[in-house]
């Protein structure tokens, strides 16, 4: 049964390309492992770093296990509060992934909706939407996110701020990434719109909403999927950057970026592991997603297809 399903998947072009690409297999397995670890953080991580009872300041600044003074109970050492590095990283990556996924889904829904409607309806509406994306693309992602964050801080009361921080972050990153989706979606919609099956649906009399989302959208999902994958890596990095700058998630629920910021203070006093491991972890995570996106872009491009 499993073998049959596997053969079926292997038989498709995309499956074949996947199982014959080392990069795709390695990067997707790394990403999958990290994803599972962070999803089941409670089971995987040896400690719960947010439980004050399990943290002891006595253990602070324990170096990794292989260094001098390492402690066998803390594999990658501990930070300045005595929290186990490995556990904080697993929990931190959970925050990073949640923010990454949520913001990219937000950006995707917004961008795809505006892109499909702009491409299909055309006219003034299209011109206005596309000029907005042009303007927004001139503002760097980080600046845009900082701007949103700043406004949110001014609006939301101080007591609510920590609670709302993660939603603000998702909104900020999502709002700065939607133009990519809008552009790609619009371009693909323009191509599909002129195909005869769309004319056929219009002659039948189907409503525009039905044509856009039932007929056109399923046919333009491939490029959107590629953008979303590469965008996911970008969103995670943006989140880390914002957290590193201190405008991201609050220190009580640290993400990878927050961990790097904490560790950065101790980098030159010899406690290199506090910033080094989260940084490496972030690089591996972003790289594996990016490589996966690269492979997907090539595999889904019929022009590059190897026969």
């Amino acid at each position, binding site marked *: 049964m499993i073998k049959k399903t596997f053969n079926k998947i292997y038989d498709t072009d995309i499956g*074949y390309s996947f199982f014959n690409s080392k990069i795709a297999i390695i990067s997707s397995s790394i990403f999958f492992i990290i994803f599972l670890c962070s999803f089941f953080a409670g089971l995987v991580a040896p400690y719960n770093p947010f439980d004050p009872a399990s943290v002891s300041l006595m253990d602070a600044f324990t170096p990794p296990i292989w260094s001098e003074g390492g402690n066998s109970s803390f594999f990658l050492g501990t930070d300045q509060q005595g929290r186990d590095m490995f556990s904080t990283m697993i929990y931190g990556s959970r925050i990073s992934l949640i923010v990454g996924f949520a913001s990219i889904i937000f950006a995707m829904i917004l961008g795809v909706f505006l892109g499909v409607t702009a491409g299909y309806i*055309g*006219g*003034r509406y299209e*011109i206005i939407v596309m000029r907005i994306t042009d303007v927004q693309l001139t503002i760097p992602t980080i600046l845009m996110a900082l701007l949103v964050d700043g406004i949110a801080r001014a609006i939301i009361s101080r007591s609510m701020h920590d609670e709302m921080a993660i939603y603000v972050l998702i909104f900020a990153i999502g709002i700065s990434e939607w133009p990519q989706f809008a552009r790609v979606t619009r371009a693909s919609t323009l191509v599909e719109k002129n*195909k*005869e*099956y769309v*004319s*056929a*649906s*219009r*002659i*039948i*009399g*189907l409503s525009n909403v039905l044509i856009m989302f039932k*007929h056109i959208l*399923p*046919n333009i999902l491939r490029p959107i999927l590629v953008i979303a994958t590469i965008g996911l890596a970008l969103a995670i990095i943006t989140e880390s950057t914002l957290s590193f700058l201190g405008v991201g998630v609050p220190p009580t629920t640290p993400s990878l970026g927050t961990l790097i910021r904490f560790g950065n203070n101790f980098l030159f006093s010899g406690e290199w592991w506090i910033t080094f491991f989260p940084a490496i972890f972030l690089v591996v995570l972003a790289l594996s997603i990016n490589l996966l996106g690269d492979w997907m872009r090539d595999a889904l491009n019929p022009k590059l297809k190897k*026969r």
Partner: protein
Amino acid sequence: MSFLEIKNLNISYATRKETIVASKDVEFILERGEILGIVGESGSGKSTIANAIINLIDPPGEITDGSIKIDGNELRNNEEFIQKSRGKKIGFVFQDPQTSLNPLFKIKDQLIETIQTHLNLNYQDSLERSIQLLKEVGIENAEQRIEDYPHQFSGGMRQRVVIALAISCEPDLIIADEPTTALDVSIQHQILKLLKHLTVKRNLAVMIITHDMGVIAETTDRVIVMRYGKIVEQGKTQDILTNPQSNECKSLVMSVPPTNKKIDRFKLLNPDGGELSDSSLNLTNSIIKNWAVRDISHEKLLDFKNVTKIFDEQSIVMSKKENDKLKALDDVSFEIYEGESFGLVGESGSGKSTIAKIITNLVKPTAGEVFFENISLHDPKNKKIKNKYRGQIQMIFQDPYSSLNPRFKVKDIIAEPIKFFQRNINSADVDKNVNDLIDIVGMTRQSLDRYPHEFSGGQRQRISIARALATRPRLLICDEPTSALDVSIQAQVLNLLKDLQDELNLTILFISHDLPVIRQMCERITVLKNGKVCEVNDTENLFNNPTHEYTKELIHLMPKIESIL
């Protein structure tokens, strides 16, 4: 020793799942001063052979066996010799003149580059030679036109430039791969005449690859008929066309629509040679009863009144000047009566498709009105009444590859209009309707659960017809329904359309650039040129005694398979 000798040529494409044999044991010769036609359906390996001669087979394609000799020199695996021969000994004319010239270089530069690569001439001599060549292929005012860029030439002129390029270094062999397929009839005629003229004048060997039997009949001396990568028959053009031996060849010749008479149905052959009787239509009585066929009233169904359409690019900043605007239709009027099949014929850019789009409400006319049974189709006040008439007009499209949504199963494609028009229909009735429709267009019910990409062009066109019939239309618009299909498939689809019209009392508006097809399908014809109506007439009258100059020219110039008989 012959000029071009191809022996035992085998070419195959190895893909992941299978090895496709594109050419199997192909053998033929070609002499100087001779025009050889290679004809066959799509996928029969015509172009593969042409590409093999100049070693342009893309991987994973590979010549596995055989030899290609020009003047006794082996071309296969002889990259150095081919490099020298391309352009010098062998000239190539591609199908699409839009893409075979580099748009960034002047015609002059492209000609001179080719000439200087192969001939030992200085700039001035090459320039003079280029001008000479352009004059030879019939470009007027060559001294000035040579300074132009490709986009400043029309399609036919561009193909002439391509031919000038091909003969620039006095090649002995010209390979023309569908040289006139992208061109209109009148330009096609000129280009073929030019090729014939050059063959005699320069003692060239010419190889023309085409799917058009009319072109074959009018230009070639000998012809090779191919199928599935094999040569099924070769010989003198006249012999093959008048007295074909093999079944493949017979069926090919039979399916070509005759230009000089109207036939009732196309005869079709089984692969084993037996004649195929009316198999395309399996209308059982129950389906027809269920269908509730309307009686034909012979009254006016569609009135297309003084319609003008101007396309203008939308811009926020400025609007175009009045006389810059392109008039796609200019005061076009005609009427269609119920039960007839009405033809629209014209060359590219004549506004045929725009008319179809206006009738189906895909675009709105700039001026004029369209009445369907006295209901104005474009009056915004008529919205409610119009919805009642929705579905009474349906359309079949030109491109079978883009007219079906690739993400939908055939079942869902056909069911969609049914569900849309009968909101509270239950699923059993939908299934029954869909089954009836797929029977009517002559396909098996197993095909319902598959996706469009699993079908051939002809089958897809049948699915497209089934979808159009799903709303029980009274007027069926066919916009070039067979121009993307092979002749034998075209014959089947045209037969199907004829049968459907007879059985279901449909009114058909048939749009085509192909005069022989129009002649077979229509009772009355409108000839269009540049958005204006030239002539409206009964088919037989129009073909036998055309009154308008343009009609006369079109009928005179169309390639006729009978010309050889």
